[in-house]
Structure formats: C-alpha cells, structure tokens
C-alpha cells in the first residue's frame, strides 16, 4: 500500500520543473550544486533556489566519455554528461553552479565543466584541524558575497536566521523520520525514503517540509497500528545514491531485506547535526562536520555507522561504493575491520549505473541476507 505522502512527493516532483521555471521567471536565481557540503542556508537567505545536480543515470555517460576517462566514477561522468547533452532541466535552469574541492575526480571534472557553465568552486579543506576550519569559514563567507552579487539581494541577519531555522526544521523532520524507522516492523520501505532524499535535493524546501510533515503523521499512524515491513534490517553506507540510481535498495528489498537507514549523502550526511547559531561561522561549522570519505582521517564516519547500527537495530550493513570511487572504496577497509570487530555483518558492493550486474548483485545480496 503506497503512502499518501509519497504519492504527494511524486506529484510535487512531477510539477517541480514547471514550478522552478516559474520561480525563475519571477526573478529568482537558481544555484546548482554537486555536494552535501554546499551550505544551502546562504542560497535560501538570498531568496535564491538551490538544486542538487548530481547525475544518477547511465544515459549521459557515453557523451561524457568523449571528454572524460572511462575508469571514472559514474556519478561524475553522469553529471558532466547531463550538462554536455543539455538534457537535465535543473541543470539548464541553473544560473551558476557551485562546485567544491572534494574528491579528485569531481574536482578535475569541474575544470572541464567550467567551460560549459559558469561555476564557483569552494575550497573544502581535506584536513579537519582548526586551521582548515578557518579556511572553510572564509569559503562560506566568500559564497555569501558571491550569492549576494549574483542575486542582487543583501543577505541580512534576519534573512539568514530565517533560512537557518527553516533548514534546521527540515533536519529535525528527517531526525523524526529516522526515529520512526527504529520501529519493528519498520513503517516505511527504504526505497520510499531514498526517493525522499533524492527529491529533497531538487524540490522547493517548503514542499519537502510539507511532504515530511504529512509523512511523519502517516507513519505514526502505521506504528500505532503495528503496520509495516518485516525483513532483515539493513543499513546502507557509502557513496551517494542520487536521483536515477535506486538499484541497490531495490535489490536489497527484493531479496528479503528492508533498508532502515542510510549513512550517505542521500541519508544521514544530508541532515545530521543542526546549525547551532545564526552566524556564517555557525553555518560553516555544521557543514565542516560532514563525515565524507574525501576528508583525511574520517573516523567519525565509522563511529556514526556503529551508532546507527545500534539505534536502528540493524542486522547487516551493505557498504556501497560506486566503481572507481577511491575515497569510499579505500575507507571501506577501515569500516569493514571496525564492524567485523564488533561482530556486525557487512558486505561490500561495488557497482556502477549499468543494469548488467543486476543478477550478480542479487546473488550476493540474497546470500548475505540469508546469512545474517
């Protein structure tokens, strides 16, 4: 039985393109972005619109491979391909695109993408020390100046406060959703939650908040009635699964698992930690904490995974890497060791956006779920 809130989500997504172009006509600027590190509060405070542009589809990879090497992460290729083919309405709507110095592949791809679309690159330091934080705070300040210049709108203290409160509200709702997923049976399927995260990068924030509020009410009802989904409780961790890419969650749920959490940029890395305060520095600090594998010594991520396993009563962890994503792939060794030490079952899955390995992956996941 489909959740009404998810139906609403789909409806809103179906209308989003039209709505976005209307907002543009009204004079609002659109900022494309490729990463969970971009502080959307700044963009919202200038009455502009942030949209996530990461590509999750195979279709645009061949055209990207005219310029990019084949052995590169599919997310990077797909994203570049969308711009080159001009086939993503969100990309085409973007007045400027914010990139960041996260992983090598993305960073170097931006050098090529810059020739196709105006870009602003934020310097995200890979170290996590105080000096690096200082650099990052400066970068967020620079972003503020850029956004003000692009939009012609001044980001006042009051507007920034409103934006911070709004995004924190969104975060709070996602926390509530995770709280509800602790229930057995779990009231919502992983595939629905994944779509929610994917579309949250694209929808108007007010619409996402509306959908989430509805969803939480609906799920509370389900929990009260004891309705939901049984199955081995799976936590997915690793690379983002951006719109267009749902393969692994689909497979897990096809073979008797149910995804109850995702430590990912389409998951906890998107909403965990509130912005505590209303200054640029407070905003910068929240984003600086995101435990992405592109950072050096990212042990907070391991601790997060262990915590989520406990909180969500997880039976097994699926470590998801996109092919050629070195950062998450290498970090997987540490994660695997740490989980095995605690006796938490983990399977590592590496895949791309093609459908050709579906059967093989199914065999693996089926065996894993049967095993745990």
């Amino acid at each position, binding site marked *: 039985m489909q959740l009404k809130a998810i139906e609403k989500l789909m409806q809103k997504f179906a209308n989003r393109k039209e709505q976005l172009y209307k907002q543009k006509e009204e004079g609002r600027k659109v900022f494309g972005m490729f990463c969970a590190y971009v502080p959307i509060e700044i963009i919202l405070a200038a009455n502009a619109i942030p949209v996530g542009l990461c590509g999750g589809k195979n279709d645009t990879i061949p055209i990207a491979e005219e310029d990019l090497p084949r052995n590169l992460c599919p997310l990077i290729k797909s994203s570049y391909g969308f711009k080159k083919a001009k086939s993503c309405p969100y990309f085409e709507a973007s007045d400027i695109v914010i990139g960041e110095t996260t992983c090598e592949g993305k960073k170097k791809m931006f050098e090529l993408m810059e020739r196709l679309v105006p870009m602003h690159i934020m310097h995200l330091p890979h170290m996590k020390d105080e000096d690096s934080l200082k650099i990052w705070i400066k970068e967020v300040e620079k972003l503020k100046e850029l956004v003000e210049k692009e939009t012609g709108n001044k980001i006042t203290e009051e507007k920034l406060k409103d934006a911070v409160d709004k995004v924190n509200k969104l975060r709070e709702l996602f926390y509530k959703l995770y709280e509800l997923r602790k229930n057995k049976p779990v009231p919502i399927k992983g595939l629905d939650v994944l779509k929610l995260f994917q579309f949250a990068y694209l929808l108007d924030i007010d619409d996402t908040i509306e959908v989430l509020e509805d969803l939480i009410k609906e799920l509370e009802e389900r929990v009260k009635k004891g309705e939901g989904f049984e199955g081995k409780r799976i936590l997915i961790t690793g690379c983002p699964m951006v719109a267009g890419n749902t393969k692994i969650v689909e497979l897990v749920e096809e073979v008797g698992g149910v995804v109850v959490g995702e430590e990912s940029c389409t998951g906890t890395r998107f909403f965990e930690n509130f912005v505590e305060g209303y200054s640029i520095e407070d905003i910068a600090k929240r984003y600086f904490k995101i435990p992405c594998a592109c950072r050096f010594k990212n042990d907070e991520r391991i601790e997060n995974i262990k915590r989520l396993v406990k909180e969500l009563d997880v039976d097994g962890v699926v470590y998801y890497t996109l092919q050629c994503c070195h950062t998450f792939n290498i970090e997987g060794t540490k994660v695997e060791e740490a989980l095995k030490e605690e006796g938490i*079952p983990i399977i590592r899955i590496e895949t791309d956006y093609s459908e050709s390995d579906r059967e093989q992956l199914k065999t693996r996941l089926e065996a894993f779920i*049967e095993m745990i």
Partner: protein
Amino acid sequence: MILGIDVGSTTTKMVLMEDDRIVWYKVKDIGVVIEEDILLKMVKEIEQKYPIDKIIATGYGRHKISFADKVVPEVIALGKGARYFFNDADGVVDIGGQDTKVLKINKDGKVVDFILSDKCAAGTGKFLEKALDILKINKNEINKYKSDNIAKISSMCAVFAESEIISLLSKKIPKEDILMGVYDSIINRIIPMVNKLKLQNIVFSGGVAKNKVLVEMFEKKLNKKLLIPEEPQIVCCVGAILV
C-alpha cells in the same frame, strides 16, 4: 525423497536424497540455458523410478525452475553441502563455470562470511576452458599434462591472459608449461581470498576441482590438503536439499 536441482552457469546437477543419504545423482553438460521443459521431462523420468516428495532449486539459474517447492541461494547451499561431506570443514572454495566462491562456515555449515569473484572470467572454469581451446587440449585428457616449468601469465584480466597464452604458444613454450601457468594464475587469485577469511579445513568444490594437477599445485601453495568429495560438482546441490 527430495530432489535437488542445481542449474549452474555451465552445468546442471541433480541429486536425489533420502534421509541424508544420496540415492542417485547426475551432472549434465548444459547450464543456465537449459529449457524448463527439458528439466521437467528429466524430473518425470526420475519419478518413474523414485518417489519425489519435494523439489529444491539452487544455482545461478535457480529462479528458472518454476516448479520447485523451495529455492535456496547457492552460497547458503554450498556451506551446508561442504559440511555434509566433511564434518570438520570450516571453509569452501567453489570454482564453477563463471564465478569463484570462497566461504567461511561454522560447525552447522552456516555461512558466516563469504567472498565472490564474479566480475571477471579470469580464475573461473570458463577461463580454463578457453585456455584449453587455445592450447587444443581435450578436457578429458587434461590430467595427462603436467610440468614443473610454470609459464608466467601475469595478466589479471581474462581477455589479456588469453592473448598472453597465444603469444607464449608462438614462442614455442610447451603446452604443458602454459597449462601450468593457467592453473597458477587461477590459484593465485584464490589464495588471497582464502587468507582473508582465514580458512583452515577447506572443501574444494565445483567442476574445476576435478582437475588433479591443479589440485596438487593448489595444495602445494596452501601447504595443506584440500578436502574434495568424490564428485565435487554436486556439493551445492546436496547442500540445497539439506538447508
């Protein structure tokens, strides 16, 4: 009696069991491309001789058997099967037509960890068959070829390894040396997986385990004996019945 059907990538195995005893079995040289009608016909033939109470399906093509009463994933079946043949086994290496499975199992034959290599044909039966093709060696005479001079095949990718074999041949390297090189490269792919799972008493199953010379080389490298049932190809099928 329970009939197990293991539709593998390359071969189909059938085993009939009664109270944990193997009554009858058969290995057919056609794998996942087998038609369901043919399977059904085979089942009918068996039924004329033996009463079948239940049919269990496993293997790469397990979902094709719509008439099965139960479907069991291969990895799970292999663990059980290994423990049936050797009650002190703690691990399994299965080299089939298109993939290699390395499993760690507990005393009940339950799988506690596993590694599958299914991305590349190198190190699987298919690669071996291809090599035999190029070397013009008949599969049934494979155990006649033996040599202490192991030709070096360095490529980790099946496609490149094939071209390496061709170039070795053109350099007039003896066939048996090249074949040893092929075995060597298959074994070298598996040893790190065995080490990673820290296996001690290893059951070697799947078609490739029928290769005496390869087994000898493998044992030498591991520095221990492998546990190999008389018919290593039916381990998975037997296990499926016992799950």
